[in-house]
């Protein structure tokens, strides 16, 4: 590649007490009546209250918590209507990927004065519209949605997860506060952490990779390598939580600019057809996806060994064996997480019915991520990856 583009305009407020700056951040974005989006679980466990407390001097326009795990186009359209009805002027999204992506969809609708998200489908085609200040506060360290120009939203009528790619989706500000992920259970910490690792590895190996996205991806991989197991074992470790939140942001910024590949394409399809949680799917599919791409990515994966396994392992592994060793490092990480949390490592454990493989494969082939995958993705290849990942 002899041309690339890179953008990451999000202001990052990261670390202890970051949430305390929320009111100020909204004020400098020109917002006075924010709509707060979250989910029922975060409301129940008190995480949402921490945010509303931080906004005690701000007049909140509306709090909306009825967002399902896989948000849909209908949900987005409904929230956009409420945003207008309640006279809101900004969005604060507190949650995991679903809440953040829902907020992105709402922002797109409001900024373009549209009523239906289906009208705005596409890639890099939406012009700058009405400004809608948008602050993202992730409560998982995985999706990286707070740093991306991508939103994945379900179309229940077609049973698929649809991708929206636009600079208009990127949040103005991301707040990474270790308090927001402190209560995340070990299994979800593991699952979302593997999503981060997958973002970074695919960003580092896809056709759209570039020197700047590589730098972000490498930093993310090193942070995951050094902190994911610690965050799983010692959930109260603010240091480990913070590192994973930073890793997630970095990996998000990386893949927002270099895209992801076959692992995500199949993962999105598995989510749409078989309802496998995204992080679990990434954890299950990543090694098989890497093995599939290895033919084209031997050197790139060889280089990854330095960041996945550290300089000592890299130094003592012969060049021709480094790619394989990098995949083995991923398998080792996965095995440790499986032992610690029971995170599934096969599709069989995840309860996927192999009879659905053809449907999953057809959906995966139409996912936008296959276009930048380094190796041509065919129906047969997807079926093979699914079979290997099933545990055969």
């Amino acid at each position, binding site marked *: 590649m002899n041309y690339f583009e890179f953008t990451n305009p999000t202001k990052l407020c990261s670390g202890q007490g970051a949430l305390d700056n929320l009111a100020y951040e909204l004020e400098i974005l020109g917002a006075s009546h924010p709509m707060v989006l979250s989910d029922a679980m975060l409301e129940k466990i008190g995480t949402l209250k921490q945010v509303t407390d931080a906004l005690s001097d701000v007049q909140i326009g509306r709090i909306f918590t009825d967002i399902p795990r896989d948000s849909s186009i209908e949900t987005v359209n409904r929230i956009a209507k409420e945003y207008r009805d309640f006279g809101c002027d900004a969005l604060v999204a507190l949650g995991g990927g679903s809440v953040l992506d829902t907020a992105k969809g709402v922002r797109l609708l409001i900024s373009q004065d549209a009523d239906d998200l289906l009208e705005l489908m596409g890639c890099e085609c939406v012009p700058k519209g009405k400004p809608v200040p948008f602050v993202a506060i992730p409560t998982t360290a995985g999706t990286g949605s707070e740093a991306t120009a991508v939103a994945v939203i379900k179309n229940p009528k077609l049973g698929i997860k649809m991708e929206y790619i636009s600079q208009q989706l990127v949040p103005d500000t991301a707040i990474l506060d270790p308090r927001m992920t402190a209560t995340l259970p070990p299994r979800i910490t593991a699952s979302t952490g593997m999503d981060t690792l997958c973002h970074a590895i695919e960003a580092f190996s896809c056709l759209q990779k570039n020197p700047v996205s590589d730098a972000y991806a490498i930093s993310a991989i090193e942070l995951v390598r050094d902190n994911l197991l610690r965050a799983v074992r010692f959930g109260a470790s603010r240091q480990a939580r913070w590192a994973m939140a930073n890793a997630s942001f970095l990996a998000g910024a990386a893949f927002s600019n270099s895209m992801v590949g076959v692992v995500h394409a199949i993962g999105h399809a598995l989510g749409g057809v078989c309802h496998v949680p995204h992080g679990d799917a990434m954890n299950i599919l990543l090694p098989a996806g890497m093995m599939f791409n290895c033919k084209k990515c031997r050197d790139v994966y060889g280089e990854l060994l330095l960041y996945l396994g550290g300089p000592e392992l890299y130094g003592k592994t012969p060049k021709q064996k480094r790619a394989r060793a990098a995949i083995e490092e991923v398998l080792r990480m996965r095995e440790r997480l499986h032992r610690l949390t029971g995170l599934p490592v096969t599709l069989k454990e995840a309860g996927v019915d192999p009879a659905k493989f053809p449907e999953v494969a057809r959906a995966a082939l139409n996912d936008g991520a296959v276009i*930048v995958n*380094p190796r*041509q993705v065919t129906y047969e290849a997807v079926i093979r990856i699914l079979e290997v990942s099933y545990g055969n």
Partner: protein
Amino acid sequence: MKRELQNQVNALVLQVLFRGFRVLYKHDERVRKEMDAWKDGLTLKLVCGPGGAVLAMRKSERTGVAKLHRAQRTAITMRFKSVEGAFRVLTGQMSVSQAYAAHFFTLEGDIYQTMSFVRCVEYAEAYLFPRFWSRRILKEVPEKELSALRVYVLALLENGR
């Protein structure tokens, strides 16, 4: 002058591509399968830069694709940001995947449905360019179900409307 020439080449290649689609719909099972799976009445447009050549098509049950007027709104529009970028793709200097990776075009419409169209373009490229050339730009060159020469001859005889 250079831009005008590129524009004319783009227009010519779009014409060849359109005829190629119709030929392959009849003679290449994979292309037929892809197009048959398109939503009924699906409309697509390829725009080769501002003021550049345009190919607007709709799904046709009989011939795979049929032409539309260039000004008509379509469900899917692939819009190259420049005439030069479109020229590089249409003359086989880079693949659709490489052009996407380099942000050479934007897409209006459903990404999900567009992927099938991209596969059709790649099948067509495998026929339209010599194998050594296709190998340079495609990740994997698909097997041909008929000879490239036959595709060219049939494309010449094909109705271009």
